[in-house]
């Protein structure tokens, strides 16, 4: 099967226009010994057959009930209002390309302009790009931006060890191409922001922290930006966009660049991607930022309109001197996030955030009552948002098997994967999608393992 519309007669007519009799005569430039290889691929399926085939494949996954899944660690189950998929299903949006012809792209341009505005409102920043691939790559680009601001003279990046470990891994990969950067924090045994601050010096391009951190804890950010700025370093904050519905924006505590993964804003987990990279900064950095930027302008008749602007930063103009190589981004996910934020609004996002807060605290309190379970053992009095750490009486794998096989519950993330000293520690996420009955079911299931 193919989606080629030609009839045999049309094809003959077209070939005649070209003066050839057979379609394969168009490929004489291809060396004969490699031309038309026989590909070993499964036979074609009709549209009627493909859907059940794909459903059969999907059925090899365990059925997912988001209300009984407590996995987070960077990807979350949140409420997705129906308006979001309605907007994402509009073919005019999702089958379009980057807005290089603004006269016929005003819809997407305005939507992205509004997205930029809402991201700035959430983060307390002055400029947002029109999206990056995902949170991790956006954070890596933020680090490269900071190195660029440092003008090649500042070689050090300080990474908090309680940044999502996969994000730190992506940053390490991105820095392979630079000779300058060395990472501190990530590779040292650092415990707490005060110790991170002590690593700051005149060689530092950026201090990078996550808030709430990878363990869900909201650390006091007071004085952090001042300490970074005192030595001429930037402060980069990795934020949770839902948490920003109730917590102070990084802009309020002095951040220079804010990054987030926007998957929580109406985008399905989709086994890890596509997600949405949010990248926002102070206006002073706009010319060093990566990615597309939408700006407001007027047309030849003076009517308001939107265009991609400051393209002179980008690869298709600057080539080897561009601020980044990024071209394709996650625009349609940004559109989804914009539709989400417009639907939830100021109050709705605040309500989602508070529900996450209360429900995660309820779950933590109930689990903490179980014998052998300790909640947030490293920082018992620290405020947290939608995630928390539990020290278990049994190995994490055993607990998760029990939860899945006996109760159909997807348990938490095994923290020993990234933090060897946290054996038998699990990271649990509780959001607004979890009714009290689900939480109680989790607690009941865990209580069976109580020692």
């Amino acid at each position, binding site marked *: 099967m193919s*989606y080629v519309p030609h009839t045999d007669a049309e*094809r003959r007519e077209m070939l005649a226009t*070209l003066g050839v009799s057979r*379609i394969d005569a168009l490929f004489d430039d*291809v060396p004969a010994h490699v031309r038309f290889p026989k*590909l070993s691929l*499964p036979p074609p*399926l009709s549209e009627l057959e*493909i859907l059940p085939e*794909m459903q059969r*494949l999907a059925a090899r996954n365990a059925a997912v009930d988001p209300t009984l899944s407590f*996995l987070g*660690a960077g990807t979350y189950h949140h409420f997705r209002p129906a*308006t979001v*998929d309605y*907007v994402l299903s*509009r*073919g*005019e*949006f*999702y089958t*379009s390309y980057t*807005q290089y*012809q*603004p*006269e016929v792209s005003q*819809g997407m341009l305005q*939507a992205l302009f*509004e997205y930029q*505005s*809402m991201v700035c409102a959430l983060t307390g920043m002055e400029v947002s790009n029109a999206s990056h691939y995902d949170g991790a*790559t956006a954070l890596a680009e933020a680090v490269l931006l900071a190195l660029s601001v440092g003008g090649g003279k500042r070689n050090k990046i300080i990474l908090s060890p309680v940044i999502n470990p996969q994000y730190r891994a*992506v940053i390490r*990969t*991105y820095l*392979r191409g630079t000779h300058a950067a060395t990472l501190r924090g990530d590779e040292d045994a650092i415990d707490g922001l005060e110790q991170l601050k002590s690593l700051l010096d005149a060689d530092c391009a950026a201090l990078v922290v996550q808030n709430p951190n990878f363990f869900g804890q909201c650390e006091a950010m007071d004085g952090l930006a001042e300490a970074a700025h005192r030595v001429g370093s930037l402060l980069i904050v990795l934020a949770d966009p839902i948490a920003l519905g*109730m917590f*102070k924006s990084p802009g309020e505590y002095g951040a220079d660049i804010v990054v987030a993964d926007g998957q929580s804003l109406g985008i*399905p987990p989709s*086994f890890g*991607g596509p997600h949405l990279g949010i990248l926002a900064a102070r206006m002073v950095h706009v010319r060093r930022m990566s990615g597309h930027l939408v700006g407001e302008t*007027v047309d*030849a008749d003076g*009517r308001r309109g939107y*265009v991609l602007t400051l393209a002179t930063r980008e690869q298709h103009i600057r*080539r080897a001197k561009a601020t*980044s190589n990024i071209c*394709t981004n*996650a*625009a*349609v996910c940004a559109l989804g996030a914009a539709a989400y*934020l417009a*639907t939830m609004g*100021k*109050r*709705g996002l605040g*309500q989602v955030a508070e*529900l996450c807060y209360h429900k995660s605290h*309820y779950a933590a*309190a109930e689990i903490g009552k179980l014998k052998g379970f300790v909640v947030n053992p490293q920082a018992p009095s620290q405020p947290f948002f939608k995630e928390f750490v539990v020290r278990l009486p049994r190995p994490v794998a055993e607990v998760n098997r029990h939860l899945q096989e006996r109760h159909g519950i997807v348990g938490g993330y095994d923290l020993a994967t990234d933090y060897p000293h946290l054996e038998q520690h699990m990271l649990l996420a509780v959001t607004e999608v979890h009714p009290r009955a689900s939480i109680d079911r989790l607690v009941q299931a865990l209580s069976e393992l109580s020692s």
Partner: protein
Amino acid sequence: MNRAPIPTVYELSVSGRQGADLPLCDVPQTQLPMSLLRSDCALPELSQIEVVRHYLALSQRNFGVDSGFYPLGSCTMKYNPKANEEIARIPAFADTHPLQRPETAQGNLALMYELQHWLAEIGGFAAVSLQPSAGAHGEFTGLLMMRAYHRERGDFGRTRILIPDSAHGTNPASSTMAGFVAVELPSDTRGNIDLEAVQAACDDSVAGIMLTNPNTLGLFEEHIEKVVHLVHQCGGLVYGDGANMNALVGVARPGDLGFDVMHYNLHKTFATPHGGGGPGAGPVGVSARLAEFLPGPVIGRRVEGQSERYVAIEPKKSIGRVSTHFGNFGMFVRAYAYIRRHGAAGLRANSEHAVLNANYLRVKLRDAYKLPFDRINMHEFVCQGSIEDTGVRALDVSKRLLDYGFHPPTNYFPLIVPEALMIEPTETESKPTLDAFAAAMHEIAREARSDSALVKTAPHETPVRRLDEVRAARQLVLTDRAATRGATTRSTQAGNK
């Protein structure tokens, strides 16, 4: 046509409105950490129907492949099958969590394993990693692997990447990001990379070459095997920019031509939607000597007796992660369905018809527009868009095409052709559509001679006319002023401009 500006979400905002409701809190409430809370968050406030009407109105001012012919060169704007959108939304795919136990995600892992295998088969490579999120991301990944390969052999002096002057801008930009120096090589008079220039540039400082084949002129490199041989001979590696792979599926495998690394654009060749700029997916395929350097995890299959099990594997000398988890899984689902729908013969037919359509249009436009390389092309071709003695430029022709209901070709690229229009019709367009486009192009050429002002001031039939890009860059307005005014009052100006 209604040309009134569409009010922004902030202009529509009225304090107290809300587009979605949430359940009441059914657990005992915990005291909030007051010192950490924000006092306000300037998000807009709309009712649900206002949200729906707003985005519907915006969509009506946007042109996609579903709206009409979109011959944007090097972007492969082919039809995005609707079944694939439905499939990607199956909850047992879309709601799966990337960190769930592999035993509970065997369907996803099997899908990725097969897709890796099929892409390797199509490209002629030994191994594939699906992780990169876009073509440029795949380039960066491939270049880091090339770097790691040389360094692992103790070869630290290879600092240069050769790139033809016809290349996409991402090639030199990716080279810089990966710590290399991009060296630009000229093209010859037939549109190939200049063989003598390649020969002269090849020495032990060359880490590799980045080639797009067919190149951005839409031409199959006539000396491809010689170029590959020269680069290999000096110890370099050959990177393939797979942006133009839509010409080659079932026609030639880059791996068979000696390429060491290539990225695939699932959002071009395998019809995952472009999404107004993204998300895409840029898996990389590699020859055997680079397989251990791939970003992990890649998916492997373990057969134990009667049962098979799919597992995530970390390649031994991996350059590390380039994104979280496995990459853009939602795009893999669509590409898998696309390949499964077509089979080998269907995929080859797609490439053949992409090439047929492009050649047909080239011949149809030959009399009206200058063709710098008038020979059989692959899936796209480049013509000069300026009309002699009229002052009408490629940009004007493009803008006038909007009035005829067509999306314009890529403008002013590749850089080596002045006034370039790069036209890629794709295989999913019918002969009547191609004929109508060719007729419009001829009509515009006539208009340029009879009434050049009409063309120079186009478009006339779009929701906005030409936009002031200089003003946008000089007086930067990157957020809605109505947002900073506060989202609490409805703007009385909205819609009345």
